[in-house]
């Protein structure tokens, strides 16, 4: 049983009277794919923002790779190997797919901000970038501007950008959102292929994908984790059924 890559301990976040995160504990083990599900408004994206460093929690700690990163900002956490994708696609539209991924490779390089090293022709950046693109099936779209890619391709690009950081953990915020059936199946297969190699926290609404991919599942309702464990157990949990049925009821 190895040391968890990511540990959330008693995380709390409130906006005025609204408790968006109400004492969340969570552990993510290396190579594990842990799904985070919950009805709309449960606070999933806010939680991801707190883990990635874009939002400061009011209380609680976040430990990443054994270190307390609660006080660190997003860029510091990224440098330590925490990558994320966004619910609303966030690529650099005017740069090519290759350049978007190369940017991530560049961040890990010895001289990320070199003033006089030409970036576009730099093979030390482009080669790993092309590998990441190939891993997500976008090898032949390398030179297309990110803004011109199809929606599903953009989601795959976000994943490639995360891979470029050689992460220890990837936070995936609804990667399947708005994606059609065919592209969705491709993405699911892609995520499955990454299992075991990267620790992943997957926030998703698509239940089929979640139960096909997840090693463990946590259910977030009104900012609290009401159930956590193996997928089958969670699925059968009456509290979980109520949360979802009550939602649809």
């Amino acid at each position, binding site marked *: 049983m190895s040391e968890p890559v990511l540990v959330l301990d008693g995380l709390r976040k409130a906006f005025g009277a609204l408790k968006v995160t109400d004492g969340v504990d969570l552990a993510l083990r290396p190579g594990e794919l842990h799904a985070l599900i919950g009805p709309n408004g449960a606070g999933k994206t806010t939680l991801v923002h707190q883990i990635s460093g874009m939002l400061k929690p009011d209380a609680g700690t976040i430990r990443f790779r054994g270190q307390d990163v609660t006080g660190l900002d*997003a*860029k510091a956490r*990224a440098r330590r190997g925490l990558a994320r994708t966004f619910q609303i696609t966030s690529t650099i539209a005017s740069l090519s797919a290759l350049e978007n991924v190369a940017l991530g490779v560049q961040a890990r390089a010895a001289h990320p*901000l070199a003033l*006089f090293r030409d970036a*576009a022709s730099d093979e030390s950046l482009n080669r790993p970038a092309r590998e990441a693109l190939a891993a997500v099936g976008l090898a032949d779209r390398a030179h297309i501007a990110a803004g011109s890619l199809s929606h599903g391709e953009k989601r795959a690009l976000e994943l490639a950008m995360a891979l470029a950081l050689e992460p220890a953990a990837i936070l995936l915020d609804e990667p399947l959102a708005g994606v059609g059936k065919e592209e969705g199946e491709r993405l699911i297969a892609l995520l499955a292929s990454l299992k075991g190699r990267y620790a992943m926290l997957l926030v998703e609404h698509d239940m089929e994908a979640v139960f096909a991919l997840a090693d463990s599942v946590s259910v977030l309702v009104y900012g609290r984790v009401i159930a956590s464990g193996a997928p089958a157990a969670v699925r059968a949990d009456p509290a979980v059924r109520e949360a979802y049925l009550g939602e649809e009821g």
Partner: protein
Amino acid sequence: MSGAPALATEGRSGGERRKLLLPAVIFLLLALAPLAVHLGMPASWLPLLTRALIFAIAALSLDLILGVGGLVSFGHAAFLGIGAYATGIMITEGRSETLLILPVVLLACAVFGAVTGAVCLRTRGVAFIMITLAFGQMVYFLAQALSAYGGDDGLTLYERSTLLGIDLFASRSSFFYTVLASLAGCYLLVRAIVASRFGRVLRAARENPTRVSVTGFDVDRVRLIAYVLSGMIAGLAGFFLANHTEFVSPAFISWQRSGELIFMTVLGGVGSLHGAIIGAIAYLIAEDALSHLTEHWRVIFGPQIVLFVLFTRGGIVGMLKRAGGGR
């Protein structure tokens, strides 16, 4: 748009060559420009063009932070002014050696840029524009308060700078070619910076700063470095300006000047770098022509700026691209 998706990077050969063509043509034309006097242009043509090139250096520096970095600085004239005043003061105090003046100019601009940049970059959007404007004003008032160096009336320089005894600025054509060579040097420098790893981060941060930070880059630091570099290059332009007009005054630092610099950059086409050069030259020639027509030339110019903004996209370079049937 045509059926083919937009190619962001067109591979080394075709795109790179095309990107070098227009700037090469511009510099070639500029190198030959003094000869126009033989074709009937008045003698004042060369000093006017020299002045245009000086502002082209300033506009180029602004394009780095404005066009490439997306930072709308409304106080850029302050750097011009600091460079000009540093030059003017040193010459007045008997030190006209370029190799002594330039380090002072660059250092003063770097320090001002670092200190004010650190404050300005804590803000975004509308606030950033206002802060840069305010700091520019501060320098303006400071210059006005320098009663030992002319105050509001300005300071007349009784000699020009020399370089190791050589009178670079003595003749009109040697002044022109010195500035042209410096402009070419600055252009290549800025171009290299933009194409570099640093430049890529700056460009990306303009479009999506969140993504850039989440990738592990310190966006504020990158912007600050760009801001300081840009200020130093504008300071160089100030050095030339002081020598050219043989006069420095707070008017160099007015916010109207900062606005004009922005207009020059946008006129040419933001972000293209050579566009800033074209824009500065076009602006100064137009200003010269208009001011001979009427005292109230601003009444014509003002609306023109407004209309230009409202109706065009991409400035002169954009128009050239469209005319050439480019993508």
